[in-house]
Each structure stands twice: as C-alpha cells, then as structure tokens.
C-alpha cells in the first residue's frame, strides 16, 4: 500500500538471530544451539524392504482399480434396469429414488476407487524420499532490470508518444470514449422506472377476490381471527402479467374488533373492523403473512420484520423501515367488499424516489 512514504529508517530491525538457517546442513555447536540439523535421513517403508509387502500393496491397488471397473458396470446396469420413478426404502435414508441412489453409489465408488488406488500406489510403492528443491528469487537481477528499462525507453522514444502530444491525447480520448457505445447498448435492457412502482392494479370499485376460491368477498366472509388473502378482481392466474401484478397487488385481510384498532386512519379505512393491508413487506418485498391472531402482529418469514396490524401496521421489530400500506375498502351496492382507490403510497421495498 502506502509503505513507500515511510522512510527506510523507520522499518523494524531485521531478525536479530544469526543466519544459521541458510541453506546447507549445519551442525549445532556452542554458538548455535538451535542450528538446522538438515533433512533427516530417509527411512524405509515396509514395502521398500519387504517384497511381499510390496506385492500386497500392488494387489490392493489392482483390487481397487478392478472394483472401479465393476462399479462402472454396475452404473450402466442400474441405468438400464432401474425405472426412474422407483422408490425404495433404505435405512436410514428413507423412501428415496432407487435409481438416484444406485447411480450415485456406483459412480461414486467407480471414481473413489480410482482415486484410492492411485493414492495407495503413490503412498506405498512410489519413492517416498523427500527431495529439496532450491528456490530462486522472483525479482529480476539488476542487470536484467536495467536492460528492460533501457528497452522500454528505447521503444517509448521510437514511438514518439511523449513528444507527439496530439497523437497521445487524441488516442486516449478515443480509447476512453468508445466503451460508451457498450454502455449505451445496455439502455434497452429495461424501461425507465417512471411511476411504475407507485401504482398497482387496485382502483376504486375493484372487488376483493379471495385467492383460494376466486370468489369476491363479503364482509361476513371475514371472521375475527381469520386470515384471508385477496387479489383484485379481473386478475387471473393465466394472465401473462399475473406474476408482476400480484407482486404488487397481493392483499392481506383480517378483521379486528373495531375497539382494538388504535390507529385512527386505519379505523377510517376499514370496514366494520375489516382491514386490508399490502401483503408485500416494506423491507425487501417478501410476502408477509405470518399473522398472529391474538397479538395482531404479522411477521415476515424472510427477515423477521414485525408489524402491528392493530396500530396502522407500524413496525415493531426488525429491519423494515416503514408501515405496511393500507388499502381503503368499503362495500358496494351488492354487499361485496371493494377497494376505494389504489394504495396511496408505493407498496413493497422502499426506494430512492419514494419520498
């Protein structure tokens, strides 16, 4: 990093100990009690001195390789013989796919035995004498460095890049500008945000449709302590934009005793204690729906933001930054629950332009 601006004299002292550890073997003496005794002498393995042991090792390796071959045959046989939907019970794994188990075990065995054979071969039969290899400094010798610098200067001079400033500057200009084309090309990856995040499918008069039954809801359908999820009338699962629309319009409906509602606006926007909140968490957008009917808290399973539905869905725990948006609801002439407009604030995660 910035160690260049630190004067040399401030550097810590080099290791004070005597440099006995350099290179070749040295013998401990009065002055150097901790001297490096050098590489210990090589000791033989059983396989090195006993041919029978070596033969045993050879047979083990060959056995492993043979096992591998058998396992591969087993793999092919399993592939052909076991139907893909066969479920078998294997303790303690449970009711699992016979094919997956057989293929995995045979493939695993085939590969593992090759590896085990090779390693056993290396460990018992190949020479295990340790060899020391010299290291060489990575940095170049001063002469080499001088040569390179001289070459570079020569090249730079011949290019006249330093002298012909016009060429240099225009070249840098051209090189800096051309990547802009690439950036411009990325423009059509998506539309501009505009006010897309501010609107949902909800509008005045849209009925609240139960997602489970696809029927519009009446106030009597929503009991105290129950939990209902709703979507706007006219939004069908087969619509091409269903996913994108439901990602904003999903609704969470509960009924509270009106006297339990602490927030004045919440009470005004409710109908007989029925409140409708956005199901999309204001933190990062998980569908928030872990409703505790006794505490009236709703918890997000992703990051544990907790909102109090009896108090304007204000945040009481966790990383969410603001309350869940409430949808103003009422009842239409036929007695069905309807929205009295869109959400009056953007649903879902907060963003820079949200305000």
């Amino acid at each position, binding site marked *: *990093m910035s160690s260049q601006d*630190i*004067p040399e004299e*401030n550097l*810590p002292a080099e*290791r004070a100990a005597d440099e006995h*550890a*350099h290179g070749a073997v040295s013998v401990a003496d009065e002055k150097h*009690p*901790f001297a*490096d005794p*050098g590489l210990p002498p090589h000791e033989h393995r059983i396989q090195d001195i006993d041919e029978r042991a070596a033969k045993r090792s050879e047979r083990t390796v060959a056995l492993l390789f043979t096992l591998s071959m058998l396992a591969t045959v087993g793999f092919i046989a399993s*592939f052909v013989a076991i139907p*893909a*939907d066969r479920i078998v019970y294997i303790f303690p794994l449970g009711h699992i796919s016979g094919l*997956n*188990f057989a293929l*995995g075990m045979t*493939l*695993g*065995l*085939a590969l*593992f035995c090759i590896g*085990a*054979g*090779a390693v056993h071969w*290396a*460990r018992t039969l190949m020479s*295990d004498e*340790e*060899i020391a*290899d010299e*290291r060489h400094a990575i940095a170049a010798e001063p002469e080499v460095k001088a040569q390179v610098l001289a070459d570079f200067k020569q090249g730079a001079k011949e290019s006249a890049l330093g002298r012909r400033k016009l060429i240099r500057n225009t070249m840098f200009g051209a090189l800096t500008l051309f990547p802009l084309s690439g950036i411009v090309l*990325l423009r059509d990856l*998506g539309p501009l945000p505009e006010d897309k995040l501010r609107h949902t499918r909800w509008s005045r008069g849209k009925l609240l449709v139960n997602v489970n039954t696809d029927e519009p809801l009446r106030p009597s359908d929503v009991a105290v302590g129950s939990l209902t999820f709703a979507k706007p009338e006219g939004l069908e699962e087969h619509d091409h934009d*269903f*996913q994108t629309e*439901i*990602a*904003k319009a999903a609704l969470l409906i509960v009924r509270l005793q009106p006297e339990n509602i602490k927030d004045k606006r919440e009470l005004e926007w409710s109908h007989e204690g029925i409140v409708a909140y956005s199901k999309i968490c204001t*933190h*990062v*957008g998980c569908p*928030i729906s*872990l409703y505790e009917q006794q505490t009236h808290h709703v918890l997000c*399973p*992703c*990051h*544990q*933001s907790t909102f109090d539905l009896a108090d304007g869905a204000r*945040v009481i725990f966790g*990383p*969410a930054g*603001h309350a869940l948006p409430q949808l103003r609801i009422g009842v239409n002439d036929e007695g069905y629950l309807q929205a009295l407009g869109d959400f009056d604030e953007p649903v879902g*995660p*907060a*963003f820079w*332009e*949200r*305000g």
Partner: protein
Amino acid sequence: MSTTTTPNPSGAGAPGRSREKAPAGEKVADWADGRLGIYSLAKANMRKIFPDHWSFMLGEICLYSFLIIILTGVYLTLFFHPSMNEIEYHGSYVPLQGQLMSEAFASTMDISFDVRGGLLIRQIHHWAAIVFLAGMFVHMMRVFFTGAFRKPREINWLFGFLLFVLGMFTGFTGYSLPDDLLSGTGVRFTQGAILATPVVGTYISMFLFGGEFPGGDFVSRFYSIHILLLPGIMLGLVVGHLILVFYHKHTQFAGPGKTNKNVVGMPLLPVYMAKAGGFFFLVFGFIAMLAAVASINPIWVLGPYRPDQVSTGAQPDWYMGFAEGLIRAMPGWEINAWGHTLVLGVFIPLMLFGLFLGIIAMYPFIESWVTGDKREHHILDRPRNAPTRTAFGVAWVTAYMIMLIGGGNDIVATHFHLSINSVTWFVRVGFFVGPVIAFVVTKRICLGLQRRDKDKVLHGRESGIIKRLPHGEFVEVHEPLSQEALHTLTAHDQYQPAEIGPTVDENGVERKVKRPQKLRAKLSEAYFGEDNQIPKPTAEEYKEITSGHGHH
C-alpha cells in the same frame, strides 16, 4: 501423423534412423516439442517439488469441486430451459401436476424426475457448489493463519479472494435459476436490496429485470451470467492462481532441512501426479456418493415461484448466510428528506458486506505496511507465533459466524426453543462484542503457547518421571529436545516494534513524525510490543540453563 512413415526433414538434429527406433510416445513428444517447446516446459515442472501436508490440499478440494461443477453444469444445460414462460406441468411428479410454472421450473422438474441420472447430476452440481465455497473459505483461512499471503503471494491471495466472491455470486445466480419458491424469494430480496441503492437503485432494478419484478427476463439473464460470464472469469482466475502457485513454488512449515530458500517434498512426477490426480477422483467420487444419499434443494416440495407465496425458513445457501444475517440483524432505519428515501436498513448491511470482506482481502497489505518487511516468505508461520494476526483472523471469523447464526435465526430459535427476537438481539450485540472477546482470548492463548514452546526449548519435554533428589526434593525429569525440535521451535522470525529498533534512535528523534507513521508505530507496537509476543529463547539463555545449574 506422417512422421512415422516419411523421414522428417525438420528433425531437430537427430538422425532419421535413430528416430525410427525411438518409442512411439517419444515421437509424439518430439512432434509436440517442435511446435510447443514442451521439453523445456517439462524440464522446469516435471519434477517440481510439492510439500506434503493435509492443509495444502484444501485448495485442491476447491479446484476439483470447481471442475466437477463445470462438468455437471454442462450436462445440466443440455436439459434446462432458461425461460419464464408459464406452462402447465404434466411431468411425473404427481403433487405438482396441472400447476402453472415457468419453463425453467418445469425443465428442472424434468431433470429431476424424467431424465435418468438427471437428479444425481443436479445434486452433484449443487453439493459440489456447497463444498466448493466451504473449501475456499477454509483454504483462505489456512492461508491467512499461516501467513502464506505474505510476499510474494499477495496477488495470488487477491486472486483467491476474487474467486471466493465470484463463487458466491455464481452460486447465487445458479440457485435462482430453477425459479422455485425459495430461490424466487431470494431474487425478490436481491431486487429489494437493489432498490435500496441511493439514486440509481430503481434504474438498475428496471434494467436487470427488464421492467418490474419479477417480469419475464431474469432467469435467462441470470442463466448467461451463471453459465458464461462468471464461470469464464473464474476459470481465468483459477488458471492464473495455479500458474502462480507453480511459479512461486509451494510454502512449507519450518522443520529440519527446510529453509526459506528451498522447498522439501515429493516430485510432481510420479508422486504428486498420482496423489493429486487420484485426489480428483476421490473428491468426485465422494461428492457423487454425497449426492446419492443426501437430498439438496428439492424444488418439487418448494413449488414454483409466485410473488405472493412464501415459506418460513427462507434462507439462501450458506455462503450468502453472512449477508442474510447482516440484513436480518439490522434495525429498520429509513431517512426521508427532500422527497427522497435513504433506505439505511438495507443499504448499510450491503455496504458492511463489502467492507467486511474487503478487510480480509486487504489484510496482507496492511500487515506488510505495519512490518515494513519486503523480504520473500516461504516458511509458514505457526498461528501462535503471529498472535496479533491470528487473533485478528479469529475475530473476523467470529463475526462471520455470528452473522451466519443471524442468517438462520429462525431455525436457531425453533431448534433451541429460543425467542427469535432474543436470537436477533444476541446477534446484534454479538457482532460487536464477539470479535473483541475472540481477539483477546485468542491472543492470550497464542502467547501461552509461545511460552510453552519457550519452556520446552529451554527446559526440555516433561517426561512424567518423578525423581527424588538426595536431599529429599522431588523433581520431574525433563528430557532435552532433539536437535530437530529445537530448530523447529525457534525457526520463526520475530519483529521488533517499529520505533525501538536500534537504527531509529539516531535520526528519528528530531524528525517530525507524520500521522500515518504514528499509526504505523502504534500498530507495530500492538503487533510486536513487549506484551504482544514472547521473545524466543536465545542461545545465551539456552546455554546458561543447560550448562549452568541443570534442570529444575
């Protein structure tokens, strides 16, 4: 090849007749050498020495799982349809028949149920990814705690770090491809986090998703990122990483005959060819068996993604768990001013995530700045001999682990019968307090171990034999250490704190000390000051004790 039948006019000096007699393999090698220069290459590398230590194989685990991921990944692309068109499922898994789902999800279902062996390859791919990331983490910690990142390996440290970070994002994009309910929730989180970015967040989100979330584009875009862009970069980095490992030659632990100027071990051919090559098969076989016995990401029970559905226990794969923990533990701060919203509750964790990883990436440069050491280091430190570094590393890992707990706070809460709110508070406090405690404790332990090493060198090993002296005193007999052990235990470098070195005194007093230098001196004191390392035994101390009044 024509060389076998017609005399080769370009034969490099060798007479045609003797070439005729050479074995076929040699002829092929000659042919290649004339074009690629393989003999010079092999001369330098064929008998390259690698030291034996299990912890040096952690990187191999990563390399091999990476190769396995590429192999299995190519297979999966043959069957996977990266499309978000909604279709009705009519495959063989009954509990989803007739359900609407994206083609991406449906094709993943087909891979799992209708392509023979598809499930196995999918599971190998995913398990290998889990192991790959875990392996990189442990490999990185091995390099950190042994100081293997020091000169000349700082750049390779950064390569490795980049691989870890890219691996996280490659894993994340891959996890999102099946478009299942769990990964979709993760993508939703990503989109929410992007929205939290000040000024440009909404634009990036619109561009990445081709409009509003989820739109119909992200699977195909993540697909090209997951199978092409990121793995391509990673492959380049892996190759660079390996070339540098070869070029620098491997580090080794201190020991008899092992110096900073050599590397002691076994040659690449044949021992490491067999061991490393064999290890590839061992890793592949092991992971295949893992995939045979343990289910991973069973998307059929997760179901297809719908933005209004969710399941509890919504977590990312482990390597994103740290980020998940930061997000979960953060209080919901949000600033609204001048018509704009600053979503600190999401943005701060995002920044912390980068910062926290960045610290460990930058550490080698910080340490070399503090020590001012410009020498090459090929002998590894035992963690105890670098107490401050070790303590810092343990503190970092502690914070990381606490946030991993935070990322799984709901699972922790249900399985240990705790309140999720208490777990979250524990994580919030623990993130700051835990590393401090870990730092202090680790440093004490390291210093204690250093003292023990010093005792062992000076007084020998406790033999457990009690002897009664003529005047009635009981003593334990200490066996002197072997020369090998004496050398190994005293082979480490010990720095002096920056400002009390002998050369500084003369000139340093009058010079005006700048702020970074003061900081450096302070850090240096914290690293190498009196109470921060135990001076290793000197020859004089040793002689005094061994020749003087004997053992006591």
